[in-house]
């Protein structure tokens, strides 16, 4: 028991636990839609695509959150343009913008003349360095995502499972699509700067995918994903403490390992039945 409690004696671990858990909850809510609608690649691209916006914000000295959101808007507009004006599938547009934005980011970073401000430290946060201020931001982000997810739940559901019929039902699929992209962007931008890029990606896709293996209904999937996400943060912090492994990275790896454990158990248990598939 002490083995489990000892790591949390420290204030930084407690802040990491709270910050990581808030990020896990926010990302579980949007990540469920990401997994159901097959948007993982877009999520990955967004995490890296906001880098030039943040770099620019630091170089020109304006709020990094605004920089990140600007970069995300540019990126989504670009992806949308490719999708509408060509016959390519959506992942081509995502791939183009992903590389383009990340490349611009590295160009900007390479132009920073000195160590002042330490761009990389601001770009990629570390969950072990989460501050009270970061936690306030995460509370706000998780709160907004929770409220909008509940309010627009029916829109997102129709969009996910029958986009064609959405129009007939009187839903506005484009509005729902834009709102969902906005939420995903908010979840990513709001948390990756404080908890680190790797952890955001791990929490965005890992817990919802694992949840989708065991439950079917979307709200239950979200709750399960949030629980798995929080558990991953707790387990990651304990492992990082006892086995001396890099904090954010360990927390990111836990939900992925968990996914394969659950998949294996499910396959062994249901060998007589049908193989596991993600819903949707």
């Amino acid at each position, binding site marked *: 028991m002490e083995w489990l*409690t000892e*790591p949390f*004696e420290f204030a*930084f671990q407690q802040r990491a636990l709270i910050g990581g858990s808030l990020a896990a909850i926010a990302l579980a809510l949007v990540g469920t839609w990401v997994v159901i609608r097959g948007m993982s690649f877009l999520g990955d691209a967004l995490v890296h695509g906001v880098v030039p916006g943040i770099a620019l914000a630091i170089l020109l000295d304006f709020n990094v959150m605004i920089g990140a959101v600007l970069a995300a808007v540019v990126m989504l507009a670009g992806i949308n343009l490719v999708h509408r004006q060509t016959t390519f599938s959506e992942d081509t547009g995502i791939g183009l913008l992903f590389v383009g934005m990340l490349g611009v980011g590295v160009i900007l970073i390479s132009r920073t003349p*000195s*160590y002042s401000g330490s761009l990389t*430290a601001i770009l990629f946060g*570390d969950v072990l360095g989460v*501050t009270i201020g970061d936690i306030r931001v995460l509370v706000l982000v998780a709160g907004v995502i929770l409220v909008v997810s509940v309010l627009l739940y029916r829109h997102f559901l129709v969009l996910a499972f029958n986009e064609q019929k959405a129009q007939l039902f009187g839903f506005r699929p484009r509005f729902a699509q834009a709102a969902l992209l906005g939420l995903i962007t908010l979840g990513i931008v709001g948390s990756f700067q404080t908890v680190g890029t790797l952890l955001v990606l791990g929490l965005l896709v890992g817990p919802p995918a694992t949840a989708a293996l065991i439950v079917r209904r979307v709200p239950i999937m979200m709750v399960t994903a949030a629980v798995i996400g929080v558990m991953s943060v707790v387990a990651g912090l304990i492992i990082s403490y006892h086995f001396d492994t890099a*904090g954010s990275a360990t927390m990111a790896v836990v939900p992925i390992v968990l996914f394969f454990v659950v998949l294996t158990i499910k396959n062994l248990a249901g060998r007589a039945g049908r193989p596991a598939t993600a819903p949707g």
Partner: protein
Amino acid sequence: MILIIGALSLLVLTACGDDEIATDHGLTVVATTTVIGDLVRNVVGPDVTVEVLVPIGADPHDYQASSRQVAQINRASLVVANGLGLEEALLDVLQAAERDGANVLEIAPLLDPIPVGSGFDPHVWLDPGRMAEAARVVAEEMARIDASIDWSSRAEVYAIELDITHREIESILQVVPQDSKKLVANHDSLGYFAAVYGFEIVGTVIPGGSTLGAPSSSELAKLVGVIEEEGIRAIFAETTETSVVAASVAAEVSHQVEVVDLYTGSLGQPGSAADTLIGMLLTNAELIAGALG
């Protein structure tokens, strides 16, 4: 709900936390880099446990700590960091620890750092004189923590050793003719060495202060031109970084150019000649003298 459970368990955990730290009587100093670790060991001697965060051979610019190490930072009597942005990926963690009451001493800002761009060059440890001063700074801080031990005498002894090392380096470098005292470095890490021993840095492979930048092809082409023009015979790469770009620059130059790995970001493996700060400085001097002499 999850948050409530989390908050409750936190209360329980913090309530039963403190005894273990109280039983820990010995002093502990955490050093961020292997170089600072060696410096601190020379000042504190066997009375203090010294823990080093960044492992041997790793790049201090992008090293991320484990939770165990952040706990060490918070528990330590003193944390000695280089500062000036060297420990880029540890910055978050060090700042948070400082706010939590950890005693963090950043040595580089106190050692008359050389300005670079809008900030300062953090690679102070390649100047033995500045490191002798750093030893005194650490001793002063240790005296504030525990006045019962004579830290400053140990620091003075180490400062004398570093002064002897400085003279040895000067004599090693005597074989380098004055017009060959030109350096091309992998990243902007040799500024102090150049300033102290009268070298000129004519080019760097990686732009910007950090090892995380990437060069443009025009910068590399310009570098090749400079190397050819100045008749430079070696590019000094680093043991903590791959030297593929440095090697391709060397291959591009019309005359023979050697790529020499210097110990810049980290000490060498235990048992190697560069496994202490003094050994590292002497090894580097010999490598530079060998390549340019």
